């Protein structure tokens, strides 16, 4: 049990070495560490180690010029599947694609599908499937890949969409002598189009343009076309992602077939890896090892093989195994496993909903690992389902953004004001830590603390969560407020400057003043005294709506003092009725939502107190 605990710690540390500047020396005696130092550097295990294996990277490795000799060939290329049998994809899916490809050049075929989309996580062999099939069937692959395109020979820049469109035009008729890679190819050869990479779409116009040309292509093309799509977030494909590229009408029409490819199964992965072990002459580790490999690489075959080569491949003596097979699988944990990635909203959702482990499973867990007992007793609540720091590490949102998000959305998840208070005071702490000046930091600690606070606050303080329901997570208003504030600041500065120059003499304090003071101190009065001077600004800066609602709610009062009296009266009412007073609620509703009634009220009573209510027109606009 002791060791397993240690293992877990090691795993976490390794996964996030940069953000947590904790000393690792204390746990350095885990055998993997020693092993790492003894590794003799291999010429090619360089860049592939930490990469999450993007397409372009792999392509580059396939470039023969990198290969130095046969023994140092990348395993990923060396053991590339050569036949259908070697593929790691479910046979049903393979035959589906194969049948379709064969039928396309069959005159009697009535299958309307012209276009298939292979969707699935990275590194599970989608592209390989097509390549292998093409080889077996004798098809030629016409491939478009953004990274292959260069600046056009004429010297001018051609947008990647244009290039893509030209490519599509050139390949839409299969028997014509298309010359993409080699013009001398036989025209009669059957071909298929492989779209392995899509142009980057930055703007909305580009998206529309792309959709348009893609749709046109799908309708007219005679060539079977396969698109590989691996951008699914967290390995799952969401239909919206594809809708960005394709018009839904086409996407869901019989012309298009979407095939979802699942990650490699445990058994498949084991078979593949076993084969490699055998061929390389490496002693086969215990079954746990494969178990772990699968877990770690989440079905990403490419990544698994690369890691395997890193761990075993570069040893001269093939018999040398990095570990005793008795405790195999232990130290691999410290090797870089494939980084998990959580989408922003998934991570935020985890933190905000702060779900806890079921009581039952918690109990059984406690029996095994007694160190949880402490927290269990302290809090009477089961553990959180997640590790807040890890969640934030894995998400792509920075701590500043995360803090803003969590703080903005958290009140909706609470039901007790005192708990919010606690949460907000924690957020304030976190913000304070993040703001601390650089010279006082000296270390990375404030960020790490803030991360912990940000991730754990809601889970910790929210003892009585509001009933679970769907909540829309939007961008926090904080940014919008900042932006508008800056805009208004500029406007106010301009006004301030203009007033300073009014009528060719320097007025208004003869001063280069701070606009903050000006906005709060002078502007409200100046608006009354010389409204024409600030007319450009008053409509959009001080939002009349809210100010007038504030006034409209007090329609029965003549002056501020009366408002104050009313406040105290209402407080009394409130206390008498134990904070449940429907009339109060209504009043508030009027204030915030039902602006039109307020507007009427204020119009009716406008004459009575001209000093606050002589701008009804502006409310009407609202």
């Amino acid at each position: 049990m002791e060791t397993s605990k240690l293992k877990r710690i090691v795993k976490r540390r390794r996964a996030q070495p940069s953000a947590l500047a904790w000393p690792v020396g204390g746990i350095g005696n885990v055998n993997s560490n020693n092993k790492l130092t003894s590794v003799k550097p291999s010429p090619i295990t360089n860049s592939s180690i930490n990469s999450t294996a993007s397409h372009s990277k792999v392509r580059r490795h396939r470039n023969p010029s990198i290969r130095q000799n046969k023994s140092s060939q990348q395993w990923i290329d060396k053991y590339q599947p050569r036949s259908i049998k070697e593929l790691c994809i479910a046979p049903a899916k393979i035959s589906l694609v194969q049948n379709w490809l064969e039928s396309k050049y069959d005159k009697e075929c009535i299958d309307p599908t012209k276009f298939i989309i292979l969707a699935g996580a990275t590194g599970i062999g989608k592209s390989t499937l097509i390549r292998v099939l093409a080889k077996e069937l004798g098809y030629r692959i016409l491939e478009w890949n953004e990274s292959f395109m260069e600046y056009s020979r004429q010297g001018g820049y051609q947008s990647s969409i244009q290039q893509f469109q030209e490519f599509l035009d050139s390949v839409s008729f299969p028997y014509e002598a298309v010359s993409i890679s080699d013009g001398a190819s036989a025209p009669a050869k059957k071909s298929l189009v492989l779209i392995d990479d899509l142009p980057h779409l930055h703007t909305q116009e580009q998206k529309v343009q792309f959709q348009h040309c893609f749709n046109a292509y799908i309708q007219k093309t005679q060539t079977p076309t396969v698109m590989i799509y691996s951008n699914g977030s967290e390995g799952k494909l969401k239909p919206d992602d594809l809708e960005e590229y394709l018009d839904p009408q086409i996407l869901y029409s019989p012309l298009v077939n979407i095939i979802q490819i699942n990650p490699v199964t445990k058994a498949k992965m084991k078979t593949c890896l076993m084969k490699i072990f055998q061929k390389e002459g490496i002693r086969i580790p215990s079954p746990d090892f494969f178990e772990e490999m699968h877990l770690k690489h989440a079905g990403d075959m490419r990544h698994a093989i690369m890691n395997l080569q890193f761990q075993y491949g570069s040893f001269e003596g093939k018999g040398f195994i990095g570990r005793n097979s008795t405790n195999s699988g232990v130290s691999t944990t410290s090797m870089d496993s494939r980084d998990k990635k959580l989408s922003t909203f998934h991570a935020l959702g985890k933190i905000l909903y702060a779900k806890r482990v079921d009581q039952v499973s918690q109990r059984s867990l406690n029996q095994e690992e007694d160190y949880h007992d402490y927290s269990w007793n302290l809090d009477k609540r089961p553990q959180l389902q997640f590790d807040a720091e890890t969640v934030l590490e894995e998400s792509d949102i920075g701590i500043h953004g995360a803090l803003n998000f969590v703080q903005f959305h958290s009140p909706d998840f609470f039901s007790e004001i005192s708990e919010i208070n606690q949460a907000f005071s924690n957020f304030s702490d976190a913000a304070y830590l993040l703001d601390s000046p650089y010279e006082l930091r000296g270390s990375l600690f404030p960020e790490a603390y803030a991360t912990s606070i940000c991730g754990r606050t809601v889970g910790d303080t929210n003892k009585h969560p509001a009933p679970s329901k769907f909540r829309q997570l939007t961008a926090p208003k904080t940014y919008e407020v900042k932006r508008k504030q800056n805009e208004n600041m500029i406007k106010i500065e301009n006004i301030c400057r203009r007033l300073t120059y009014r009528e060719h003499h320097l007025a208004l304090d003869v001063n280069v003043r701070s606009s903050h003071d000006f906005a709060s101190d002078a502007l409200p009065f100046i608006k009354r005294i010389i409204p024409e001077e600030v007319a450009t600004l008053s409509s959009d800066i001080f939002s009349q709506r809210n100010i007038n609602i504030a006034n409209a709610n007090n329609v029965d009062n003549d002056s501020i003092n009366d408002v104050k009296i009313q406040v105290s009266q209402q407080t009394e009412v409130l206390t008498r009725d134990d904070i449940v007073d429907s009339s109060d609620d209504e009043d508030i509703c009027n204030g915030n939502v039902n602006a039109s009634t307020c507007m009427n009220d204020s119009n009716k009573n406008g004459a009575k107190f001209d000093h606050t209510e002589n701008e009804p027109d502006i409310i009407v606009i609202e």
Partner: protein
Amino acid sequence: MPLWVDKHRPKDLSQLTYHDDTTSRLKSLAEDPHSLPHLLFYGPSGAGKKTRISCLLKAIYGNGAERLRLDKRTFKTPTNRSVDVNMICSNYHIELNPGDAGIYDRFVVQEVIKEMAANKSLNAGGGIMGISASTEEDDSKKKKAVEYKIVVLMEVDKLTKQAQAALRRTMEKYSSTCRLILCCNNQSKVIDPLRSRCLGMRIAAPSHDDVCVALKNVAAKEKITLPDKLTIGIAEECSRNLRRAMLMLETSRVNAGSTVLRDNQGIHKTDWEMFILQLARDITMEQSPQKLIAAREKLYELLINCIPATLILKTLTMELIQNLDDELKYEVIEAAAFYEHRIAMGSKDIFHLEAFVAKFMTIYKKYLNDMFA
């Protein structure tokens, strides 16, 4: 037509109506401009710091110090960025707000002072004591005496620490040809070495009586009848800020529509204060997460309108504690002080404001529950 606040601003040391001690000291400084040290004016806004500085300048240099022009200077920083800074100049002095330069303030401060120190004063107008009609001999005597120019730096408390440190070195180096007058609200944000090199001039906020006197003066000059009750009302509402009092007076005049002001016509409060009042009312009425979300919207609105967060917090606290038990007042003010410190130290204002609102709601709800449970 200029605003009353500008029109009736004292132009001369003798016209100042309050802080007579300070005024007489300034007079004696101006009598012997040779011994003028670097000065640091500090005090709340609307107390009259700026007015006193310009009066002092006039007393030293004579009418020439009143001929002002607005300049826009562009500085090139060592990193090849250009920074625009607005400044107000006369032949004898230059006034700027180095905070405009943002992070390049250190550079701007040094450049300006170096430049000023490099050219000796033109001394064209000579120094004329503002009080007595001065004779030709006085003039010539002053001409020789005043050999330095003055740099007025506004809002030194907003300067970065680096800029303040730079100021320290520069002001020693060039003190023979250049004097500095620093002006700030909060002396505690000015670094110690700087404070020790300057003669501190504390300009306290005017008392209610002082404000009333000033208001009456202006009313007399503008030939309007200002009833006593309204005067006192304005003095109480202006939070001892004379600039604000003057603006309130002129607003009342505009609202009244005639030169005769009435006692009962009410004082125009600023719209943002009304807004905060409403906010305070809301959060004392009901304490729930929903209310907190509504309150947050109001806070956003205030921030968007460029109301400083510390001011929001202060005003809100003052409104909130009015109807509270003494025991609660203590707690609420403690919380307010805590979060005001946070706001001053950090940049995420909204976090701290909301935390304060939540804190108040909790305190208040607990109080109500304890009372009626």
